[in-house]
């Protein structure tokens, strides 16, 4: 599904490299940038509102593969929606982020899901529903069960996080990566799966770095 960048050249065993694009979607001020910032820098602070999109890049050296991980952190305001397809185009994964202390943001995440379902086939994209701001437990408006139940019916990964108190942030990103790799393996074991791949779409962005 992802573009296989290079085969590992180390003597022990070839380790594949993948490049994945993950997009963060959700209402404004639910903590998309903060999640990205926590994950990338392991820090939390007041961030400027995102206008358009901001970008992060992470290379993960895992046992089974090297993963280059692009994170596209989008602007949350609804008015930006007409340009948002620019950002989630060709994504391999999406985090649908909502704020557990604001019920409306979950409705918004559901709308995002509908939008993604229109553009992607289910096996084209890994989607995780993320209830952020567990540090605001006292103001909680969405129960864990509600989020989890919705994710289960739609076949999404689910996790609650807090970028502020660093709760499960790394886990949610890793869970997505693991799921991407699991699907990669599944595909490899069924070699004659349907040919529609994202490779061609993204062929112009091949990374030539060796590892």
């Amino acid at each position, binding site marked *: 599904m992802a573009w296989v960048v290079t085969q590992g050249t180390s003597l022990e065993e070839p380790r594949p490299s993948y490049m994945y694009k993950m997009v963060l979607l959700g209402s404004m001020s639910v903590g998309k940038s903060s999640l990205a910032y926590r994950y990338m820098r392991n820090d939390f602070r007041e961030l400027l*509102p995102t206008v358009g999109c901001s970008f992060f890049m992470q290379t993960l050296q895992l046992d089974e593969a090297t993963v280059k991980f692009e994170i596209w952190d989008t602007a949350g*305001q609804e008015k930006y929606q007409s340009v948002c397809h620019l950002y989630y185009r060709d994504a391999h994964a999406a985090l649908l982020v909502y704020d557990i202390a604001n019920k*409306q943001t979950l409705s918004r995440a559901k709308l995002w899901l509908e939008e993604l379902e229109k553009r992607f086939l289910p096996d084209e994209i890994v989607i995780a529903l993320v209830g952020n701001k567990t540090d605001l437990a006292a103001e909680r408006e969405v129960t864990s069960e509600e989020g989890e139940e919705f994710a289960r019916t739609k076949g999404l990964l689910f996790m609650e996080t807090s970028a502020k108190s660093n709760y499960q942030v790394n886990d949610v990103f890793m869970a997505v990566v693991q799921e991407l790799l699991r699907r990669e393996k599944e595909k490899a074991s069924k070699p004659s799966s349907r040919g529609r791949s994202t490779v061609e779409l993204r062929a112009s962005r091949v990374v030539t770095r060796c590892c």
Partner: protein
Amino acid sequence: APLGFTDVNLNSRNTYEVSRRRSAPEHLPHGGTAPAEPAPPPAEPAERARHRVGIAGAGSSFAEFFTRNFFTKRTKELKPAVQSAPGWKLFGKVPPRENLPKDSKIIQQEYEARTGRMYKPPPPSARRKNIEFEPLSTTALILEDRPANLPAKSVEEALRHRQEYDEMVAEAKKREIKEAHKRKKIMRERFKQEENIASAMVIWVNEILPNWEGMRATRRVRELWWQGLPPSVRGKVWSLAVGNELNITPELYEIFLSRAKERWKSFSETSSENDTEDAGASVADREASLELIKLDISRTFPSLYIFQKGGPYHDLLHSVLGAYTCYRPDVGYVQGMSFIAAVLILNLEEADAFIAFANLLNKPCQLAFFRVDHSMMLKYFAAFEVFFEENLPKLFLHFKSYSLTPDIYLIDWIFTLYSKSLPLDLACRVWDVFCRDGEEFLFRTGLGILRLYEDILLQMDFIHIAQFLTKLPEDITSEKLFSCIAAIQMQNSNKKWAQVFASLMKDNKEGDKNHSPAPKS
């Protein structure tokens, strides 16, 4: 630190006073010095003086003043007084203490004591003067005698070490002198720059502003304009250049402001009951807009600590944005606007800031972007690419090879008119010429940035370019950027920006819904 924060608030009020005075050139006292201010904080007299005259380098204005002031204070506070340095012993039995400060002075003292030369601390004033020429290193180490369990240095060796040491000291001194010269040169340049700005201010106030319509388009004024507007006339010139096509009066502003206030009141009374599930309702939308303004204000130039709750400009920013959403419900509040309003508020009185804000956002380019009219935005991007290819063909191809489209970086730049992406003083200089040249200059600035970093960008892949351009280096200087912008030709086979854009518009047959007029006031 809570202590630091009150400090800052106090300060900001003082700077607020200063800027208010600055923004009204007719109140400028002669000679440029401001009247006595309420309890000026003692720190950094030079810095303050610079600002009082209002010529702080075309706009190392506010932002710089502020952050600098704040941080110097903080570092001063944080630095613990570890003056009582422990005894210096390299090979002895005493275990080296953690964070043992390697104070060159102490080493030198010890050396001098040992060689018989008396160390007498110079009087404090002389000491301060000399400090530039004192070698600040630990080279004295080589003069140490060896510990008792090792054979002693031979005479030649000791002599050689002595000589080496002297050479090092001489070298260090030379370096320090050179650096001192460099510092002096920078100071001289800065001084000259300030003088230039001061004399420019006189020209603006005495000659240009009284004859605005007659002079604004003259070559001399345009050239002076390019150099950057003196902060004291900046707001005034922006106002005049943006104009008031919409004929908004301060009274009209008051009307929309009071309407906004009413709405906030009713909003805060009902907000807790408001749990509508459908996100599409327009009432919910409008209220979300108010909520959003509140959220964004606290995130507007947070490092300045003036727009945040309790800061001196918090209410002003809230008012201007709130009044605008009442004035133009068809546009409403869009993220990015808070930065534009904030920059205007820093340079203009409240009502004037609103008038400039509304008129600025009514320009075709801004209207297209703030309505997030994607098809119109694409026209602007296409026009931009015409000039991109013309000016920077190599980089253009590089971007093409990664399918890196201008929306990736231009959306942020155009929405906030660079006020979020460039340092504030530099953004103000871009605004200066934007007011002179119109939308074309926004795109020219974009090309200037690409040109400035062309070599670096050519080495990068998609994601790194995207990352780089959406978070530009903080050390970008106005000299470098403006020389790159100046090198960008806004001519494409004899067609200017407006013509290129117009022909792109013609290609599109259904591009007419985009120019709905502003409501009559």
